């Protein structure tokens, strides 16, 4: 009985260790990604901002900072090189957008497509407002005028008699 319980608890601690190692894995991977470039300080900060804002074209919905795909590594190198060359953040993003499309930028520019996306909820709210006021207006109109009311009373009286 005692032995069995002890075995169980050692199993549990084994699991705990395994989970801790698993949890540490992304941290280890992330630090590996970060140490691959060496830039002087103001550039390094901009580098980290940029690679967090650029989307990996291969892996869909992960930025190039967190991706281990070879293309993400290449693009990080491109960003680092262009920073060293003195390009602005806008220039670097424009360069990559030209080649990989707006897809690559997690902060995409306003285009007719994105504008429609942003405007759609507002347009729908306006439509709803128009419909509601129209319904309210009609309901008000349904109230009988004084003339109609006397006519109704007359009709009722005639029916009852």
């Amino acid at each position: 009985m005692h032995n069995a319980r002890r075995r169980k608890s050692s199993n549990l601690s084994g699991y705990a260790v395994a989970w801790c190692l698993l949890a540490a894995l992304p941290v280890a991977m992330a630090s590996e990604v970060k140490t691959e470039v060496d830039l002087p300080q103001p550039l390094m900060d901009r580098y980290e901002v940029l690679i967090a804002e650029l989307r990996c074209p291969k892996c869909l919905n992960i930025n190039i900072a967190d991706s281990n795909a070879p293309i993400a590594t290449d693009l990080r190198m491109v960003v680092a090189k262009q920073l060293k060359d003195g390009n602005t953040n806008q220039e670097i993003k424009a360069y990559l957008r030209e080649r990989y499309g707006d897809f690559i930028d997690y902060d995409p520019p306003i285009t007719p497509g994105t504008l429609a996306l942003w405007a759609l909820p507002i347009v729908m709210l306006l439509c709803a407002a128009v419909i509601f006021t129209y319904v309210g207006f009609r309901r008000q109109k349904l109230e009988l005028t004084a003339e109609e009311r006397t006519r109704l009373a007359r009709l009722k009286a005639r029916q009852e008699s």
Partner: protein
Amino acid sequence: MKSKSAFTPLRAALWLPLVALVGLCIVFFQSLGFSPRNVLPSAMLDKPLPEFSLPELSSGIQATHLDMPKEAFLLNVWATWCFPCREEHPVLMSIAESGINIVGLNYKDEDAKAVTWLNTIGDPYQLNLVDRTGDYGVELGVYGVPATYIVDQNGVIRYKHIGPITDEDWEQKLSDIFLSLAKKQARA
């Protein structure tokens, strides 16, 4: 006096949300089996092939965009480490046999391995550019291998195919695009 069932614009408008909902359901249902992996739009379409100066695989001589074929051609990005490229290879061989120019871009590969590959399973390429670092790949907007660009006689990119070309891809889509370019050239 209007009866309750009379048709009014308002009554018709009340059906709109239901119609919209059904429409959305159809769109979403159709999207279920649809993987966006291969439909990333290429930003490079209708732009000239980026300038380059890269060594040619067999000769080692530097080639530039000026050395490209003067008629429409395929630019195929490949590597020996790329598994789907092996699957694509026989398709490229048959395309080349039909007289279409294919330029290879050997991407992040080793020259010796690439030469061995071509010597053993066949060489569909008119010439092969070597992009050891992948820098030219970035210029082209390559993010996965294989990828194939259709370039017209003026050196302008007209189409980008991502992933291996299958026989169906070629017969049903790419050959039409390619032939329409060739026709345009004949007319010009």
